[in-house]
């Protein structure tokens, strides 16, 4: 191959820049040998086929067990492959064809597959018809074993390299030694392809949709992959290399400096201190959030212990969990959100009535107040843990004052119980609510007189306000944090809280989004709670902006009438203000 410089443009699916050697993964389809067989060989061919299937089953189960933790959620794809392997349309049909048509196993399997392919091609729903690629993947695996074509071992790469392939199946990607992979470049695929999702999970640069990159590259060819712009350079010259080296170094420098400064407080250029806290789900996470620069836990989710066992958790178990978390983060606060779950999720443990719309049904505080026996146990555990750190209680899905009053009464009862039993707890434990139902935004001034703090839960607030179910693909595009209504609501909650002198924070995904944060600070928020992973970056952004300027900006933004206008304005401004962080301003 001539080492000619070739520049290609693809779809950038995972950001980052990498310069390295290519490792071509050849997933050429196996050529199927076609043979008529003698009656006396039928049993032999069937056995050969069954053995090959067993071998593939072993391979897939093995892959599934070796799947790294960060890819565990992809295990279901391997499960469905295992299921296809034994499916009657493939398995029984192949055996049947060997018997009836007296042909070799490979041919019989191919004919069974062609039949399935024909059926799938008639399906209109592309989401279902595309599953033929899973069937093909399984068939190719069996064929490879039948024909003795040595499967290329990609789990064992000698040196670190950029994977170049036609397209990668989920099983292929699971097989890769992720420590050795520098990035991905493929002919096919797009932003939502499996490999793209994987690349982002592994934080590796990836460019897809390059048509014929596999023809232009061989093992060891030098490549530059720019996952920000989608540019791929094959056989780059010295100028390319020095230019991209410099860009890569800049990026690394920014990333490292962000991490190094994570422990510094988040103070704006004009001296406003913003408190940056972490959202966590498991006790284990609590131990590491300080390293990421968190100043407390702004949202401690408590559902896990209720979902992980067959029975409801015991008070002791909850208490131990909350106590350890409180001690680990002390003296910083931990805000424990009481059970935020619907009856539908606990149906094995309690008798629940069928609901047609659980999102608007018996959930969270409603569920807890309906089941005071279950709620009391959690409240006791939280109160007991409050003797060991700065524990606060946060109530989810409040929609009226009555719910607050009823819960506070329940808490008072539990306190009296603990008093009689002589069990220590913090008498002045703070009780706050999540503002996530639109009604509470409107009566926030009233509610503020009855609680110690507000936390704005934007994920649900957006869904309930814009009347969309984010999981519903048909309307998910309407989910819009920059909707003027959402911004005005946030502003109004902040004003109500300020008027009554109670603290207000925000704990939805917006709090961890580089584009939203400056706007939220401009709206007047001083406390944000987010995914701990993004804390170093968010702190860095806060340290580079001026709150007073953002306030003026926010006033202007509140006048805008469409989300698009707001988004464009905010993106432009941030890119201008912080050009070195441009890579992070891609939007929610």
């Amino acid at each position, binding site marked *: 191959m001539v080492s000619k410089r070739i520049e290609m443009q693809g779809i950038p699916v995972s950001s980052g820049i990498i310069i390295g050697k290519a490792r071509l993964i050849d997933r050429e389809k196996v050529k199927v040998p076609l043979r008529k067989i003698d009656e006396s060989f039928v049993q032999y061919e069937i056995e050969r086929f069954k053995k090959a299937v067993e071998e593939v089953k072993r391979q897939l189960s093995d892959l599934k067990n070796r799947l790294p933790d960060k890819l565990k959620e992809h295990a*279901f794809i391997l499960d469905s492959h295992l299921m296809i392997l034994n499916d009657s349309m493939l398995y029984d049909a192949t055996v049947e064809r060997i018997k009836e048509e007296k042909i070799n196993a490979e041919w019989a399997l191919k004919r069974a597959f062609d039949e*399935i392919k024909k059926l799938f091609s008639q399906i209109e729903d592309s989401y*279902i018809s595309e599953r033929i690629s899973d069937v093909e993947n399984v068939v190719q695996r069996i064929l490879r074993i039948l024909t003795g074509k040595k499967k290329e071992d990609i789990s064992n790469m000698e040196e670190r390299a950029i994977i170049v392939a036609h397209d990668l199946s989920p099983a292929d990607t699971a097989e890769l030694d992720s420590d050795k992979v520098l990035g991905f470049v493929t002919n096919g695929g797009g932003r939502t392809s499996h490999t793209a999702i994987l690349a982002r999970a592994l934080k590796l640069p990836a460019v897809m949709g390059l048509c014929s990159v596999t023809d232009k590259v061989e093992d060891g060819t030098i490549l530059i992959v720019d996952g920000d712009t989608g540019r791929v350079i094959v056989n780059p010259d010295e100028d390319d290399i020095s230019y991209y080296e410099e860009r890569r170094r800049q990026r690394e420098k920014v990333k490292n400096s962000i991490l190094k400064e994570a422990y510094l407080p988040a103070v704006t250029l004009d001296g406003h201190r913003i408190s940056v806290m972490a959202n966590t789900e498991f006790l284990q996470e609590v131990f590491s959030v300080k390293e990421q620069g968190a100043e407390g836990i702004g949202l401690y989710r408590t559902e896990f212990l209720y979902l992980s066992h067959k029975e409801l958790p015991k008070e002791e178990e909850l208490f131990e969990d909350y106590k350890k978390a409180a001690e680990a983060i002390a003296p910083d606060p931990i805000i424990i959100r009481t059970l935020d779950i619907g009856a539908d999720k606990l149906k094995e443990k309690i008798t629940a009535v069928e609901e047609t719309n659980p999102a608007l049904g018996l959930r969270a505080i409603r569920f807890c107040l309906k089941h005071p026996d279950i709620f009391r146990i959690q409240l006791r555990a939280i109160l007991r843990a409050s003797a060991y750190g700065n524990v606060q209680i946060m109530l989810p899905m409040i929609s009226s004052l009555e719910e607050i009053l009823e819960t506070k009464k329940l808490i008072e009862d539990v306190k009296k119980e603990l008093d009689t039993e002589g069990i220590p707890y913090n008498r002045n434990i703070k009780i706050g609510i999540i503002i996530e139902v639109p009604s509470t935004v409107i009566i926030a001034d009233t509610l503020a007189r009855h609680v110690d703090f507000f936390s704005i839960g934007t994920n649900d607030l957006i869904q309930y306000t814009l009347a969309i179910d984010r999981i519903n693909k048909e309307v998910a595009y309407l989910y819009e944090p920059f909707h003027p209504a959402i911004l005005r609501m946030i502003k109004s909650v902040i004003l109500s809280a300020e008027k009554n002198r109670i603290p207000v924070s925000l704990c939805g995904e917006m709090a961890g989004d580089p584009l939203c944060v400056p706007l939220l600070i401009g709206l007047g928020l001083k406390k944000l709670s987010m995914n701990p992973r993004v804390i170093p970056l968010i702190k860095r952004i806060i340290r580079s902006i001026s709150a007073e300027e953002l306030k003026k900006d926010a006033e202007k933004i509140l006048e805008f009438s469409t989300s698009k206008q707001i988004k464009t304005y905010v993106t432009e401004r941030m890119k201008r203000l912080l050009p070195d962080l441009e890579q992070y301003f891609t939007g929610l």
Partner: protein
Amino acid sequence: MEFVKKLRVKNELGLHARSAAQIVNLIRKHKSKVYFRKGNQTVEGDSILSILTLNCPKGTELEVKVVGEDAEDLIEKITELFEKGFGEL
């Protein structure tokens, strides 16, 4: 024992790989045979590919027939899967 019942696909994505896999898993844990009929097309319930090729987006009406010793229990569980939208609702 033999039971027949009409079911409707309620989940957004229809009977795709994940939901079909749930049905097959359930059936494989039972002894009875299961057949799904849509229009004049009938397929066996323990084949994920057959279920997929039946092409059942949201709103599809299906007839399920369960034959065997644990048919009553199984048809109830299948109904529940459909009713709950395979955990996607």
